[in-house]
């Protein structure tokens, strides 16, 4: 593990959202990337918009049974959920984010209970409200955000990552994954300038990479190989960076972090 001294200036902080078809490996990538960046000196806020478990496991964090953000939510006179008085994005990160290793903070949406989302709707609602305002506070200006955009094209369409300066499209070498990513690209064609980069995941060799690159007509920013060590980590529910720090997949994610840093310096 190399620890780099923090570079001056806000250019180095990153604002990344990870998108792609379900199962492509978004949470695994987002969680591992968050830990890698934290080890390089970033102040990292991980954002988990999924209503089912995922990102916390990849980060190596323990999520409490009750979503912390529920305590930040209340119903107004109109019956609608809102943030409690005095709670904005900075305070929410301070008080209601979950601790992950390497100093990463994790802000989670509400998660399905066995009776559904109703018991945690407050947390789901205020999570969305907070995500929309993450660019506001001066206190978060130097933070790096790594967001996990779950469930395919839907969240992109609702602009669940307005903080993102770069969207990482995670694509497996399958038609289902490629078509979904293409739908995401089309839906995300918004006026707001956001860079989209391709990450080929679970690649078993160069033909897999070419399949995806040819489909999109663009080079991949990173290629993460299919990796047995990663599979074992996934089976156990442990963070790949803890269970398999020297695996090819984690090495590829470290290279991705290099590429993102180089990209942000050029921007």
């Amino acid at each position: 593990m190399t620890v780099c001294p923090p570079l001056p200036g806000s250019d180095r902080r990153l604002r990344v959202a990870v998108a792609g078809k379900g199962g492509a490996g978004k949470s695994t990538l987002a969680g591992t990337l968050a830990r890698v960046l934290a080890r390089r000196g970033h102040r990292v806020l991980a954002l988990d918009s999924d209503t089912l478990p995922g990102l916390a496991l990849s980060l190596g964090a323990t999520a409490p049974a009750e979503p912390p953000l529920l305590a930040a939510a209340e119903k107004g006179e109109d019956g609608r959920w809102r943030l409690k008085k005095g709670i904005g994005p900075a305070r929410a990160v301070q008080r209601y984010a979950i601790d992950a290793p390497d100093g990463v903070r994790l802000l989670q949406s509400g998660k399905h209970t066995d009776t559904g989302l109703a018991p945690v709707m407050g947390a789901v609602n205020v999570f969305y409200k907070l995500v929309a305002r993450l660019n506001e506070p001066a206190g978060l200006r130097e933070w790096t955000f790594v967001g996990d955009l779950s469930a395919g094209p839907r969240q992109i369409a609702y602009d669940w990552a307005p903080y993102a300066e770069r969207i990482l499209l995670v694509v497996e070498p399958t038609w289902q994954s490629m078509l979904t990513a293409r739908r995401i690209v089309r839906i995300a064609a918004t006026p707001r300038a956001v860079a989209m980069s391709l990450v080929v995941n679970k690649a078993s060799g160069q033909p897999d990479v070419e399949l995806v690159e040819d489909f999109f007509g663009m080079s991949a920013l990173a290629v993460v190989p299919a990796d047995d060590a990663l599979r074992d980590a996934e089976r156990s529910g442990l963070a790949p960076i803890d269970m398999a720090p020297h695996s090819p997949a984690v090495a590829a994610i470290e290279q991705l972090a290099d590429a993102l840093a180089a990209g942000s310096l050029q921007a």
Partner: protein
Amino acid sequence: MVIGDLEAGIGTVLRLQPGMADAVVVVAQPTAKSIDIAGRAARIAAAREADVLVVANRIHNEEDLAAVRAELGAYEIFVVPDDPAIYRADQEGLAPIDVSSDAPGVVALTALASRLAGSGAVTFRAL
């Protein structure tokens, strides 16, 4: 016979009314995340009076199967091994059954189909 491919997660099984589905096929891979969700989906489906069957997908080895069994062992499990024919189908955009009808994964799913067809009344909706 109507086969519905539901949206991912447990939201849709939660909205199933008792009697809406005769059988719920719950699919899991050997990952902690998918097994957790599959377990929940199975419990919810069983509570809604559906027959629950499990597909353990992309099974490489005994540890993979054991992980699925640990959570879902109470149900009938159809094991789909990591199958090169299915992998090839995904890469080429083909139906697995068209790549090979005797590939191990396809055989397992054909057995599941027989099991579904053989269980209970088969009603042909007036379509």
